[in-house]
């Protein structure tokens, strides 16, 4: 009987994890696959190139997780270098990184 229960549990796990796993539909961006995440950061960088608004860029990056915007951008540059992104794209990311490294959130500008 214990063997039957174990087989049942195994079947249940296979069904629930492999055959018909939970499907997520309303996920936050922090679990985006690395390439999508990199593309999102690249878009923010391209927009920053036009808008030159650090506050907006930082807010857009903040949806990707609790890391600082500079860390998010830096890891994207690493990804871009690993995956041979065109030089101009690496350059806009670099510009965004420079901006995020010097960015001070509003209210924290004091000494």
């Amino acid at each position, binding site marked *: 009987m214990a063997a039957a229960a174990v087989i049942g549990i195994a*079947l249940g796990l296979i069904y629930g994890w492999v055959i018909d*796993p939970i499907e997520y*539909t309303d*996920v936050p961006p922090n*679990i985006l696959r690395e390439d999508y995440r990199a593309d999102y950061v690249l878009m923010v960088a391209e*927009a920053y190139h036009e808008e030159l608004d650090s506050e907006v860029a930082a807010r*857009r990056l903040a949806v990707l997780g609790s890391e600082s915007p500079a860390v998010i951008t830096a890891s994207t540059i690493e990804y871009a270098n690993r995956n041979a992104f065109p030089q101009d794209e690496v350059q806009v990311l670099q510009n965004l990184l420079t901006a995020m490294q010097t960015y001070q959130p509003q209210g924290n500008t004091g000494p």
Partner: protein
Amino acid sequence: MSRFNFRGHFFQLFFALLAGLGLGLVYSWFLSPVTYVDATPAILRSDFKDQYRVVIAASYASTQNLDRARVRLQLLGDVDPVGELSAQAQRMLAAGESFEKARPLAQLATDLNQGFASLPSPTPFTILTPQDVSAISATETQTEETVIIEETVTPFPTILFEQTPITPVVIETATPRATFTPIPGPGAPFALVGRDTVCAPGTQAGLLQFMLMDSRRKQVAGIEIIVTWSRGEDRFFTGFKPELGNGYADFIMEKDTVYSVRIAAGGAFVSDIVAPACTDPNGVSYPGGLLLTFQQP
């Protein structure tokens, strides 16, 4: 007797299997479900999808890379990406956000609809040093004030949703040149050139439609229209329904209400607008629509 025992034993095994199956499902679905770590943009929550679209549109405003913007929008899995862009732009305006924020979305929708970028290619990317960034950050506050001043002086959105054709340079011979004729710029006032009653049973009752065109009869997006009546006022822009035309906008009139229309950029003022009475084939009267066509001289 032995037959009975066999059956009882079989049921015990069966129920043990069933209980195990149930426990396995509870564990795999509720206690320790599959954890997503490599999500695609298509399964993002709707508010994050909106944010994603805003960033796509802002990136497009910088790069003017329409193909890439199209591919990025496809990642969101929308059935009608252009419609979603327009709808989001309208939602933003309805929520009281400025036209400046909604404009990149509307422009991307317009460009996707027409199939080419409205604005010329951007300048090449330059390297920013930390000193440059500090200078930019220092002027960001001032920039906001400047924008407000500019908006007061020139309330008309200056963006052009047209593509400037690139013509080859031709070396002129001795042929006499034609006399220069000034062409009205984007700020030239619009004039009412058409006022047509639309009687089409089945369409929205009291639909007031606008079509705004430039001097070359090309539809113009981003023009603010102000509709006023005794109990209120509404402001909206052309180009937020690109599937109906870049220069299109509409408004629903109520029965027995008199409206006035003004194009915000110093255009024509049209008063005494009411929903016309139409009659269907059965002789039943219903409120029809109006199509107002404005054109720059």
